[in-house]
């Protein structure tokens, strides 16, 4: 005997505590079960790709800050790499290493945020968020020390980085990666990884199979949680990532829990990279001198890096002018949302929230 019930359409978002910004899911539910999901985005659309067509290449760097505002450094880096690829600019050695350090610090900061917010979506009453924010703040302190900004860093430049690091940076970084963060990550392990309630809530929730992950162009932790050892830092090394020793953590069954554990492990791997990069930091210029209004030759370039959210790619088309003719961003947050329906249909509302939290979208990047 089954009980017939009316289907209810529920708007989850755009004003909802756990949609991580102005993201809207229209869920058709049967009791607590989700029958259909439609996603509505665009509340934060700023038409960056159009705006960039009337600005010089350097002026476009702040736009990349505002895309994934939780991982501004990696967005900066991806954009600068694409312009450098287009214009054939060499980057000094020191700048390469600095880029690696800041990209990995940014990965730690972003994964801290993702992990904390994910546990918050699981229903913890702000405690994990506060813990992870505490560590994220320490990373942001380093950003502030270097470039004066914490969130929208605008640090990478075409041909290098904007500023060289200050003298007190390296001791602070050393303290952070050798004293503070390893202990914190152990704490996350103890608090979160073996937590029975999180196991109950996140195991087998939002499962992505490897075939589906590849077919849906997923990237980053979403792809790796499905059991695919793919990391652009290994596959297509940029900024000299091939010189560092680190491992790709890979999940087993592509569920929300795997993604959470994966992020914690990736933070540890980032620490490894930073430690190596700190010791390999050469002296020299931090920037190649390029004209402010750089005019790359006509052509096109697609360059991609591994941002915390996944593969962020920049497709830049130049007509020889000072402004890009066309500038397209492959936003990992948007593309990772492709499987939202496949992941959530058949689950309860609570699971859908957990799933959405585990995707780790950033609406600034989804909408651009």
């Amino acid at each position, binding site marked *: 005997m089954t009980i017939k019930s009316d289907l209810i359409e529920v708007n989850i978002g755009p004003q909802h505590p*756990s949609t991580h910004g102005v993201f809207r899911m229209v869920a058709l539910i049967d009791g607590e079960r989700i029958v259909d999901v439609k996603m509505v985005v665009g509340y934060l659309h700023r038409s960056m790709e159009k705006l960039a067509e009337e600005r010089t290449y350097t002026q476009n760097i702040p736009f990349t800050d505002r895309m994934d505002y939780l991982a501004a450094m990696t967005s900066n880096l991806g954009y600068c790499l694409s312009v450098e690829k287009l214009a054939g600019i060499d980057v000094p050695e020191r700048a390469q290493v600095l880029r690696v350090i800041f990209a990995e610090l940014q990965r730690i900061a972003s994964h801290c945020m993702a992990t904390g917010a994910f546990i918050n979506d699981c229903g913890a009453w702000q405690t994990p968020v506060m813990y992870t924010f505490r560590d994220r703040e320490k990373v942001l302190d380093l950003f502030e020390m270097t470039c004066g900004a914490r969130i929208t860093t605008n640090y990478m430049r075409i041909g290098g980085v904007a500023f060289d690091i200050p003298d007190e940076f390296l001791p602070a970084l050393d303290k952070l990666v050798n004293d503070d963060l390893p202990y914190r990550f152990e704490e996350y392990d103890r608090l979160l990884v073996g937590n029975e309630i999180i196991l109950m809530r996140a195991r087998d929730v939002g499962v992505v199979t490897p075939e589906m992950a590849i077919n849906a162009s997923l990237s980053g932790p979403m792809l790796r949680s499905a059991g695919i050892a793919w990391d652009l830092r290994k596959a297509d090394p940029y900024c000299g990532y091939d010189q560092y020793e680190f491992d790709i953590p890979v999940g087993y069954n592509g569920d929300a829990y795997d993604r959470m554990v994966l992020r914690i492990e990736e933070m540890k791997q980032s620490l490894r990279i930073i430690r190596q990069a700190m010791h390999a930091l050469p002296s020299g210029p931090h920037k190649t001198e390029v004209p402010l209004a750089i005019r790359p030759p006509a052509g096109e370039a697609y360059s991609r890096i591994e941002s915390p959210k996944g593969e962020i790619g920049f497709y830049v088309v130049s007509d020889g002018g000072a402004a890009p003719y066309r500038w397209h961003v492959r936003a990992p947050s948007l593309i990772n949302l492709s499987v939202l329906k496949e992941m959530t249909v058949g689950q309860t509302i609570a699971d859908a929230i957990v799933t959405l939290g585990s995707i780790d979208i950033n609406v600034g990047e989804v909408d651009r």
Partner: protein
Amino acid sequence: MSALLTIISRNWYDIRDLSNLSNAILERIRDAGGPGWLVYVVSALLGAGGIVAFIGGAAIINIWIERRVVGRMQSRLGPNRLGPFGLLQPIADAIKLMQKEVLQPRVADALVFSVAPIAFTVPGIVVLAVLPWGRNMTLADLDVGVVFILAMSSLAALAVFTGGYGSNNKYALFGAMRVIAMLVTYEIPSVLALLGLVLFTGTMNLASIVLFQEKYWLPLVLVQPLPFLIYFISSSAELNRTPADLAEAESEIAGGYHVEYSGMKFGLFYAAELINCVAISAIMATVFLGGWWTYKLDEIVPGWMLFIGKIYAVYFLFVWTRGTLPRFRIDQLLAFAWKWMTPMAFINIVVVAAEVLIWTETGWSAGLLLPVYVAVNGAFAVALIVGWVRFMGPKFSRFPDRPRFYSGIDVPSLPAYRQPAPEATGIGTAPSSTGVA
């Protein structure tokens, strides 16, 4: 010390037992020739006034405690600006809430919407009336106090349902239905947990339960550890506190039953939640921790102060769990109650009944039996919990918890997820079947 005690206890203002104070007032009335009903009314008003004053203070102080304690747990300070240690912050919040416009959705069920917060506040207050605050300090000394508090706590959930339904909001309705489901589920283990206690003490009168603990020098939590745990968990579900705050589930249904409330109506919900929490803490302090009795300490320190101290000790447990644990899913929570707590409570009742039978039939002395019972019940509770988790617990798909590590990329060659239709051609004739493999 004894001289001090005599000084204190000789006078009507003996703070150890506030009933002396009311007795003195009542005697004054009687001496002045006041009618009998006036004495009755005045004594009722005195007690009620005391309880309401306590609740008013508690509602304010509890917010502060909760925010400070959780703040410390979250490695931050909590409110610390307004007043000493931020003590005035809740008052400022209350003033803000009162000033806010009370919005009511146009499609809401006006009467139900307005009555719900008030109805939600009542049970928590009423429960405090039947509790023994000191040796003679019980406002309404009900013979069926235990059943009364259970009845009242079930009414609170109904008020929550009323609010959720009256809001005419989908989220609120979700919250309401979750409350109802949880009420049906968690009423049973909490009743059964207290039933074991009633069996053991042989009375449903809360004051008598405290006196029982005083007589045998034994806080009942020692002899009944499993009901303590069961009652704690099920009442945290009834109170809508994490890990069982499914009815308001901020991250899922955005506040649940009180999503449409604003201003002081919301404030009432908020305050009533805290009051209910204090009430449940007080019940647990009374029946499990000995209420106002604390060995010989209650002869020096006023019993009601000890009682309040115990209330806040239990309240700290609630705050602790709230600051620590994530939330269950609704089906997991209900399954937990039905598959874990209810059977355990039943088993516990059988055990307690056997113990009571041994006690009454053999007539052995309590000094001999009770330590044995303490040991047996403690071991039994541990064995039951461990065994139940081992054999009946949820079976996770136990993949290795740690991710695998690859030093390079390694992607297996996988079949395509979506199979194209074989006769596919170009524009206009793209296949219509999805063909998902």
